[in-house]
């Protein structure tokens, strides 16, 4: 670079690298680092204190949800409870049953809280959601009130219990004692199921003589439900079975047996099948039982006041209809009772109708007249001798014939026509007739009824038995009910023990004894039932020192068996009137080959 002439010349910049000059790194020789003092090390790894974490509900609880379809029942026009809501007063209790005497009720006493009946889930419903369905329903009284269902009479609280028992069950035996309204409970339950849409096709099967009873009760307790009675010739029955828009059909057992194939051919099935007097199917191998069990159905209800007539096998037969295989004949009575418990509801009048008029039992032990006694003695001796002669050839039939012959003599002397029982009966009827009361007289034999009618004509005696046409029987009932001069109705156990409502009768006479006490109870309960106005006096004639007394002892043991199964009590020492029992009546040993049951 030249600066002496003042002339500005271009300057060339040359980098050191271009001159290839050696480059020297200059390192300061002064150590600027300050020496650190020697560190003292103290241990500082003291562990942190443990922290306990307390959950403060930061997680929400798990929820299970269940949803139910709304009821299909239409809303009520005017709920009955509305009145009490408007008045903001206590709940209006259900009116007391009109037929129930309100003994001891004080006019000024406060109304007790109304009973509310819950529909409990049956034991065989296992899913929690389905059990909830029942538990979360309103009580039965509320369901009825909000469904606008009218009843001709206010049901008793135990009848609500019966409905709550039937409604949720697919297999049920309503085994209430006669007279407690099994039909009404079943019909009301049917009505609720039809109303809710759970049942659209219902079949009621009953004995022939009770078909008109059922149609009448259905009209009373479920007037809005159409009912078809299956009857007439086959063409007519085919048409009746095919009626699709009739929710309830009523058939008798004989029609059901006859139409078994027709039902199958038409492909009929039912949402509910109800058997009245279901003891009819206790024999599983009978045509009736097989026909009943062959009908396709979803629910099976059996109504019977006598689920155990003779032996525990009877109940097994009924269960083959309601819950096949649930019971078997190898079960002891106690085990069977426990197994059946959830399917069977049994109430007796003394338990549920505290205010019902009492039933007064008189066991009239009657001494045969001298001639009658002699006839009886000869017949028994000859009969026993004949049986002894037969030895191992003796059959149950031979014994049975002798029993029947002796019983007939106890009623009427076959030679003289004398009857100590009749003398006694006439004396009682004089008083009953004079006081304007009514009496029922039961006998095992139509022939006996005929003889009695002749002897008791001054009391306006009427007959009612299976040898009469339905129309004649209905007319007899009508006359007995409405015509004052007829004080006595003579009935056979077979025709008169079931289904009749004769609660205006205050006296019942068992002129002779039936083979099992359950049938006798049914007979007695024609009079001693809901609606009975006063005490019912039951007189059971028993000829002293005769076959009747010996049979009575066996009957008492049979009653014990029924109680055992239905109450799950201890097993009784003996059960039923077996062939051994029958032979034992005459102190005979049954032949080994005989194996039939007698009754």
């Amino acid at each position, binding site marked *: 670079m030249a600066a002496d002439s003042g002339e500005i010349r271009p300057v060339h910049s040359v980098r050191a690298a271009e001159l290839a000059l050696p480059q020297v790194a200059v390192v300061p020789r002064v150590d600027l680092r300050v020496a650190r003092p020697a560190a003292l090390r103290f241990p500082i790894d003291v562990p942190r204190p443990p922290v306990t974490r*307390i959950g*403060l*509900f930061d*997680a*929400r*609880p*798990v*929820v*299970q*949800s*269940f*949803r*139910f*379809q*709304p*009821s299909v*029942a239409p*809303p*009520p026009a005017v*709920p009955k*409870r*509305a009145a009490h*809501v408007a008045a*903001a007063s*206590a*709940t209006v209790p259900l009116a007391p049953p009109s037929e129930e005497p309100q003994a001891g009720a004080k006019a000024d006493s406060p109304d007790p809280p109304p009973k*509310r009946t*819950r529909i409990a889930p049956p034991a*065989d*419903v*296992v*899913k*929690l*959601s*389905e*059990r*909830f*369905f*029942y*538990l*979360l*329903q*309103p*009580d039965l009284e*509320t*369901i009825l*009130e*909000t469904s606008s269902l009218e009843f001709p009479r206010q049901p008793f609280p135990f009848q609500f219990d019966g409905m709550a028992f039937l409604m949720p069950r*697919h297999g049920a035996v309503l085994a209430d004692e006669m007279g407690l309204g099994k039909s009404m409970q079943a019909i009301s339950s049917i009505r609720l199921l039809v109303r*809710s*849409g*759970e*049942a659209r096709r219902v079949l009621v099967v009953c004995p022939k003589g009770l078909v008109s009873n059922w149609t009448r009760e259905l009209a009373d307790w479920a007037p809005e439900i159409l009912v078809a009675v299956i009857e007439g010739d086959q063409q007519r029955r085919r048409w009746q079975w095919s009626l699709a828009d009739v929710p309830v059909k009523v058939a008798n057992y004989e029609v059901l047996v006859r139409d078994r194939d027709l039902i199958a051919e038409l492909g009929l099935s039912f*949402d509910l099948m109800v058997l009245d007097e279901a003891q009819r199917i206790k024999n599983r191998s009978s045509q009736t039982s097989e026909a009943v069990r062959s009908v396709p*159905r*979803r*629910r099976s209800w059996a109504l019977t006041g006598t689920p155990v007539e003779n032996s525990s096998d009877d109940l097994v037969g009924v269960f083959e209809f309601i*819950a096949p*295989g*649930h019971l078997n004949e190898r079960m002891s009575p106690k085990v069977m009772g426990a197994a059946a418990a959830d399917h069977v509801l049994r109430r007796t009048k003394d338990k549920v109708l505290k205010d019902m008029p009492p039933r007064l039992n008189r066991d009239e032990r009657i001494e045969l007249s001298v001639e009658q006694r002699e006839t009886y003695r000869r017949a028994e001796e000859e009969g026993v001798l004949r049986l002894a002669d037969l030895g191992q050839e003796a059959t149950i039939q031979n014994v049975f014939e002798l029993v029947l012959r002796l019983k007939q003599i106890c009623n009427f002397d076959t030679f003289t026509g004398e009857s100590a029982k009749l003398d006694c009966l006439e004396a009682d009827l004089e008083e009953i007739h004079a006081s304007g009361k009514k009496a029922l007289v039961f006998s095992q034999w139509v022939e006996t009824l005929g003889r009695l009618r002749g002897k008791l004509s001054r009391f306006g005696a009427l007959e009612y038995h299976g040898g009469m046409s339905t129309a004649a029987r209905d007319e007899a009932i009508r006359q007995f009910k409405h015509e004052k001069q007829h004080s006595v109705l003579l009935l056979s156990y077979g025709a008169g023990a079931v289904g009749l409502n004769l609660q205006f009768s205050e006296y019942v006479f068992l002129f002779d004894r039936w083979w099992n006490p359950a049938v006798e109870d049914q007979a007695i309960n024609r009079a001693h039932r809901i609606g009975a106005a006063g005490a019912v006096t039951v007189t059971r004639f028993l000829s002293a020192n005769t076959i009747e007394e010996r049979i009575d002892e066996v009957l008492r043991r049979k009653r014990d068996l029924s109680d055992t199964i239905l109450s799950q009590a201890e097993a009784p020492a003996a059960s039923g009137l077996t062939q051994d029992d029958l032979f034992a009546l005459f102190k005979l040993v049954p032949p080994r080959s005989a194996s039939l049951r007698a009754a």
Partner: protein
Amino acid sequence: MERKGAAAGKQPLRPGGGIERSMEQKSAEPAGGTAPGPRSYGFLTAVESGSHGVFGGYLLVDPLGRPLEFHCTAPVKVSRAQQILFGSTLQSHLHGQQIGGTLLAEGTVTPEMVLTDLEPMLHVRSHTKLPVAFVRDATSGASASAGASTLVTCSFTIGNATVSPHATDASREVDLRVRLEELAAAVDLREPFERIRAAIDEAQRR
């Protein structure tokens, strides 16, 4: 329908016109998922079980008192530490938020109102837009306790029940009363709580 020992080949009916079940277990979600549907009423309560804890139950019924939905919680167990730390706010938090709020969030229909027979459950009002009211026996003569007195300011009697709306809803007393009348015409307003307790008892036994 599942039944023990049902006869083969038979198709039993569904009870009561059928059940649609939602059996899935799921955690509660925030409220607000409900949709308008048929008119309904909610009944909310809790049951204390010594061994398990507190179960919550929420029943939705139609105007005839028939069940539409039921929701129940798993038991909530309160520890001693939680009792100490929550102090006097424990019950309101447990019933109002943990149980009540969770259950209300599960409903798929919007009820006219929610009724409870437990005073602490009134705190659920802070977690829902639905009106909430306390129900008690009108004939017992018992009044709402001090705990509830800050939450309710008015009450009315309908049937056998005294209904005390949450203070937030006090201005709607007349409206709430009108809404309840249809249901009260069908059922005693205290009665559905019995059903909830019976269902929770059944759930515990199983």
